[in-house]
C-alpha cells in the first residue's frame, strides 16, 4: 500500500485474519445495538415482473452487511427502494423507526447515502467540487446569502472546503482535488464516489459494487476503506459479486435470489449453506454469465 492510500483514521492493519476475528465482536455489538435501518416486507413490482418479493432485514449501528446474489436478483432494486428512488409496491422501509421518505433527496438528508453500480459522479466537476456537492444537505446557505457572499456564506464555504479536504484525504485522493472527476482512474472514481457520499454525513452508507472492475490491490484498499468507514460509526451495506470480498468484510450476509431473501446469516453460515451453494456459488458457469451480464448492463447504462 502506497502512501496514496494511507488513512489517518484507520486503526486496523487491514490483515484478513484480523478482520475475521473482529467480526464476532461487532456482531455482538449489533445484537445489543439499536437497529438503524429496517426493511419490512419490501415488494417491488415492475409490470409483470416481481423484482423484489417480501424482503425484510434490519441493519444495526456500526454493522457491515453484504448483499449478494446472482445478477438480476434485485440487489440494486432493493437499494433503490431503500433510498427512495423507487416507491416499493408494498412493504415499508424505516430509518431509526421513522418511515423512509419517498424522495432520494430527503432520504439523504435523513442520513442514508449511496454510491452507484455504474459510477455516477459529476464528470465535469473537479473531485473537490463533487465532494462539495455532497455537503449540500449539511450546508446552511439561503439563496440570498449565495448571492451576497456575506460572512456566514464564507464561513459555511470554508467549513465545507475543510470537510472536503479531510474526506479526500480520508479516501486518499488529496492530490487529485483539482482534477476533473472524469479524468480520474476508475478505482479513484469509485473512491471519490464514496467520499462524496460520506460528505452527506450519513448514518448508513449503501455501496453498490464498490470493487467492480478493480484489481486485487485496489480491492484490498477498498476493504480497508470500508472498515475505516465502519469505524467512524457508519453502518454499511455492500452489494458485491466478489463473494470472497464479502465474506471477509461483512458481519452479516444476505443472499438475494430472484427477488427473495434466500439466506441471512454470518459469512460462515452463508458460505456453508447448501441452498446458497446451489443457487449461487455452486454454479460457477452461472457466475461467469452473471459477470457478462453485469458488464452488459454497465454498457447499457452508459447511454
Amino acid at each position, binding site marked *: 500500500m502506497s502512501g496514496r492510500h494511507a488513512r489517518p483514521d484507520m486503526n486496523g492493519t487491514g490483515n484478513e485474519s484480523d478482520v475475521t476475528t473482529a467480526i464476532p465482536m461487532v456482531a455482538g455489538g449489533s445484537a445489543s445495538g439499536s437497529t438503524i435501518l429496517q426493511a419490512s416486507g419490501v415488494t417491488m413490482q415492475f409490470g409483470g415482473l416481481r423484482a423484489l418479493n417480501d424482503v425484510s432485514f434490519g441493519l444495526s449501528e456500526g454493522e457491515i452487511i453484504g448483499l449478494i446474489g446472482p445478477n438480476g436478483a434485485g440487489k440494486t432494486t432493493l437499494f433503490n427502494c431503500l*433510498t427512495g*428512488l423507487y416507491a416499493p409496491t408494498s412493504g415499508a422501509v424505516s430509518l431509526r423507526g421513522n418511515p423512509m421518505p419517498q*424522495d*432520494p*433527496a*430527503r432520504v*439523504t*438528508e435523513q442520513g442514508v*447515502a*449511496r454510491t*452507484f453500480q455504474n*459510477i*455516477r*459522479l*459529476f*464528470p*465535469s*466537476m*473537479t473531485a473537490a*467540487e463533487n465532494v*462539495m*456537492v*455532497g*455537503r*449540500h*444537505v449539511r*450546508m446552511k*446557505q439561503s*439563496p440570498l446569502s*449565495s*448571492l*451576497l*457572499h456575506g460572512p456566514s*456564506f464564507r464561513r*459555511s*464555504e470554508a467549513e*465545507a472546503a475543510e470537510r472536503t479536504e479531510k474526506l479526500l484525504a480520508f479516501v486518499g485522493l488529496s492530490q487529485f482535488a483539482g*482534477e*476533473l472527476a*472524469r*479524468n*480520474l*482512474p*476508475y478505482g*479513484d*472514481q469509485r473512491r471519490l464516489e464514496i467520499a*462524496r457520499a460520506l460528505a*452527506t454525513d450519513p448514518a448508513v452508507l449503501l455501496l453498490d459494487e464498490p470493487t467492480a*472492475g478493480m484489481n486485487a490491490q485496489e480491492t484490498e484498499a477498498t476493504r480497508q476503506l470500508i472498515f475505516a468507514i465502519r469505524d467512524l460509526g457508519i453502518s454499511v451495506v455492500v452489494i458485491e459479486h466478489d463473494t470472497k470480498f464479502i465474506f471477509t468484510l461483512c458481519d452479516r450476509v444476505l443472499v438475494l435470489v430472484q427477488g427473495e431473501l434466500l439466506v441471512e446469516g454470518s459469512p460462515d453460515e452463508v458460505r456453508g449453506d447448501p441452498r446458497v451453494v446451489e443457487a449461487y456459488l455452486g454454479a460457477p458457469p452461472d457466475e461467469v454469465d452473471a459477470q457478462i451480464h453485469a458488464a452488459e448492463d*454497465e*454498457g447499457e*447504462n*452508459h*447511454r
Partner: protein
Amino acid sequence: MTTIEKAPSQALAEPPRGRLAALAPYTSVLRIVGGVLTLVGAFLPWATFVLNDGPYPEGATLEFFSEPFGVSGFRLHLVLLGLASIVVALVPVAAKGRIVRGFGWGVIAISIVNGLYITVEGGGFGAITASDGTAAFGAFVALVGGVVLVVGATAGGIDPPTHWDLKLGRVVEWLILLVAYAIVLLLVAAVLTSGGQGGAANPFSGAVFLSFLGAVGGAIAGLHASGLLGWIARMSERHRIYSVIVLLLAALALPLTSAGTEYWMTVAANIGVYAATAIGLNIVVGLAGLLDLGYVAFLGIGAFVAANLSGAAASVVGIELPFPLVLVIAAVVAGCFGAVVGSPTLRVRGDYLAIVTLAFGEIFVRSAQNNIGGLTGGSNSIPNIPPVELFGKGFNESVTIGALNLPSGVLYYVLIVLIVAAVMWVFGNLKNSRLGRAWIAIREDEDAARAMGIRTGPIKILAFLIGAMLAGFAGAFFAHKLGTASYESFRFLESVTLLAAVILGGMGTIPGAVLGASVLFVLPEKLREFADYRLLLFGLALVLIMRFRPQGLVPDAHRRAELAPESEAPPDHPDDGPAGGTTVKAAAT
C-alpha cells in the same frame, strides 16, 4: 464512441503528421520564405485597376489596393506579420511552430479577404492578376506566403503554448495588467471603428473590417502561443478583484475612445441588453442544463412591465414610477413568470422541457400581439416611453463634462455597463455557491444530484426564476432605451440569438455570454453592406461555429479541460478501459 476511438486521437497529439513530416527538416527555411513572401506580397500592387468613381471619390477608390509602396491598412498588417514570422523563425523562442502558424493563418485571412473583395468588386480574376497591361499579384504572393508559413510551422510539430511561471511584485503586475486592459480597450475600439462606419461614405468598410479581424486574430493566436496571454490571464486570476475593477473602468472608458460615437453607444447598449439577458439564460442553460427556447419572453415581460409603469401615454396602467423601482418590479414580475414556466420541470425533462419553453415563448408573442389585457399595446405596441431621467437629465441626451463632449447614448451605455456588471456579479456569486454547485450537479447527472440530497425540483425552478429576473431587469432598461415596447422585438429568432450567444460565448462562463452577444451584434452591424444576406449569413455562421467550435469561444475552465486541445493530454495517470467508458457517458449527456 468507444474507447477504441479515443486512443488514436491522443496518439495524434504528437508532432509527426502524415505527409507534412517529410518537410520537417526545412521548417526554418520555410518559415523564413513564407515571411519574405508575405513582405513581398505586401509591397506588390493588389489591383490592376483604379476605380475613381463612386459617390465619395476619395473614399471609394481602390487606390489603396494598388498603390505599390504605400504601407498602410492591411498592407501594414501584412508587413508586421511577415516581419514577426521571420524574427520568430530566427530567434530561439519556445513554441515557434505554434506562433508562426497563428501568424500564417492571419496572413491567409488577410489575403483571402482582400483578394476576394477586389476580385468581386473588380469583376473577375483579372482584377488581382494581370489585365490591360498591368499586373497585380500581391494577393497571390501574400496568400502563398501565408500558406508556406502555416505549412512550415506545422511541419515542425506544434508544441503546446509556452507556460511562463514568472511572478513579479504586486505593483509591477498591477501595472502590466493595467497596460494589458488598456490595450484590450483600444483594440476593441479599433475593431469597432475599423473601416469606418460603412454606408455610402465608406464602401469598403466590410472588407477592411474583416481584414483587420484576420490580422488581429493572427496576432492574438501568435501571442497566445508565445505564452504571453496565458501568463497575463494567470496574473489577472491572481489579482481578481483588481482585474475586475480595471476591466469595469476600461468598459466605462470606451466612450472616450474612437468608438465613442452615438452609433456605437447605441449598438453597445443593445449588446448590453442581450448580454445581460444571455447571462440569465446562462444560468438556466449553462449551469442547470435546462434548455430554454422561449427565453426572450422574459425580456419582453420586463419591457412591457416597464412600459406600463413609465407613464407612456399608450399604457393602460398609467402609473409612473421611478426607474430603479421599475427595474425591480420588472425583474420580480419576470421572475414570477420564470417560476411558472419552470414549474413543468418538476415533471418534464430534457427536450420535452425545451418544447414547453418554446410553447411559452410562442404564447407570449401571440398574446402580446393580441394586446392581452390591454397591457402590450397589441400591434401598435407601446410607443413614446420616456427616457430614463436622473437629476433632471434625460439619459438620451449628450453629456458635456468640461471640455469633454460625449455623444448622446453615453449615459445609457454607462447604465447598461453597470447593469451587466451587476448581472455578472450575480451570476458569478451564484455559480460559486451551494446553489450554483447544485445547478451544475443537476446538469451533470440529475439522479445522482438527488441522491446527494439536492431537491432538484425547487432548485431547477429557482434557476428559471433567477434567470428570468435578470432578463426582466434587462427588459426594463430595453424599453426605456428603445422608447418602444413591441411584440416584434421578442420573436423566436431573438430567442435563438440569445441561445446562440450563450453557446457561442461558452456555456456556463461569465464572460462568455457577453462575448457571444457582442459577436452576434457587432458582426451584423459591421457587415451591413450585405443587408440582403444578413439572415442567411447568420444561419450559416451558426452552423459553422458549431462545426468548428462547439464548446464556444471561452469554454468553462472545466470544459476547457474536458475539451483540451491536442497537446494538453489528461494528467499523468493512464487511461484504462473503464475510465474511457465513463468519458463516453459524460460526452453523451
